[in-house]
């Protein structure tokens, strides 16, 4: 099962994703958190700490895996719930790695995620909304196009797609139980 969640920065999408992951878990499920962001500076460290604190206080046990490329390599069990946070950092990892072509970054991500979805109980994917403004440069446009392609494929494949606006989940596909 695939749940796709997107929204603006600080819109509450990670928090919703964690709640849904906990709802989807059965007794033997492990909650696996795939953190895809790279610790590039102190601001990024602070962001990561904010997310870690919330998971620590969530009342559930999370196994954290740090993986910014080759997500398919994460070891999983069929009962696992895997939360991927987030697709934009994952795409940055795949787009800028030097050993594989950037032109196929989107295909690698989709194929990794579909494979993970096939061998776990559920994957909950978090991403960020694409901007609604003129693209500031060619590289950004290329990256945004790839992100758009990944989002379109994931929305097509998923059972549930949610856009979070200011903490309010707007269900675009499928349905969810009350998130509270």
């Amino acid at each position, binding site marked *: 099962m695939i749940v796709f969640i997107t929204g603006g920065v600080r819109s509450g999408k990670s928090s919703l994703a964690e709640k849904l992951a906990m709802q989807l878990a059965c007794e033997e499920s492990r909650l696996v958190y795939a953190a895809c962001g790279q610790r590039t500076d102190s601001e990024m460290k602070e962001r990561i700490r904010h997310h870690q604190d919330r998971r620590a206080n969530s009342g559930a046990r999370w196994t954290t895996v740090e993986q910014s490329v080759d997500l398919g390599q994460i070891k999983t069990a069929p009962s696992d719930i895997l939360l991927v946070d987030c697709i934009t950092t994952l795409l940055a990892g795949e787009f800028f790695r030097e050993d594989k072509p950037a032109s196929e970054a989107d295909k690698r991500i989709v194929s990794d995620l579909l494979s993970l979805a096939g061998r776990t109980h559920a994957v909950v994917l978090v991403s960020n*909304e*694409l*901007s*609604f*403004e*003129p*693209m500031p440069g060619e590289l950004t446009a290329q990256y*945004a*196009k790839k*992100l*758009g*392609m990944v*989002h*379109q494929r*994931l*929305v*097509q494949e998923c059972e549930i*797609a949610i*856009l979070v606006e200011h903490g309010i989940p707007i269900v*675009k*596909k499928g349905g969810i139980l009350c998130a509270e």
Partner: protein
Amino acid sequence: MHFVTGGAFNGKKKWVTAFYKLEQTPHQWHSFYKEKEAPELREEIVVLEGVERYIRALLERSGTPEEARLLFRKQLEKWQKEDRTVILIGTDITKGIVPMNAFDRFFRDAAGWCFQDTAAASRRVDTVWYGIAETIKEETE
């Protein structure tokens, strides 16, 4: 007229192609990304893609968003009078941070106004979010 909008790379073109079964239906496809001028309409179904780029070209010609809007409205009226299905696809560029550069601000202003005019002139308006369309206006006969 049918106006299809949404953010960049959200699958608007793909949705229009599927919705109007364009792979099996004769149609005219005009892209403002390739050609700045408005075309002569020939087919029963005409798709005009990249409307925001056309607005940008009008702005380059006229200099102010107000003038660009007037030019756009004239063109819109012509399209509206056509006895064919005219589909306009426009990428929504109106929701970002206010740009530093004055021309870019004008471009967004012009796009915002012209999209309002397009929506008002269209019988149907859809926004596309990663391939899922939401109909936000639909006039019945």
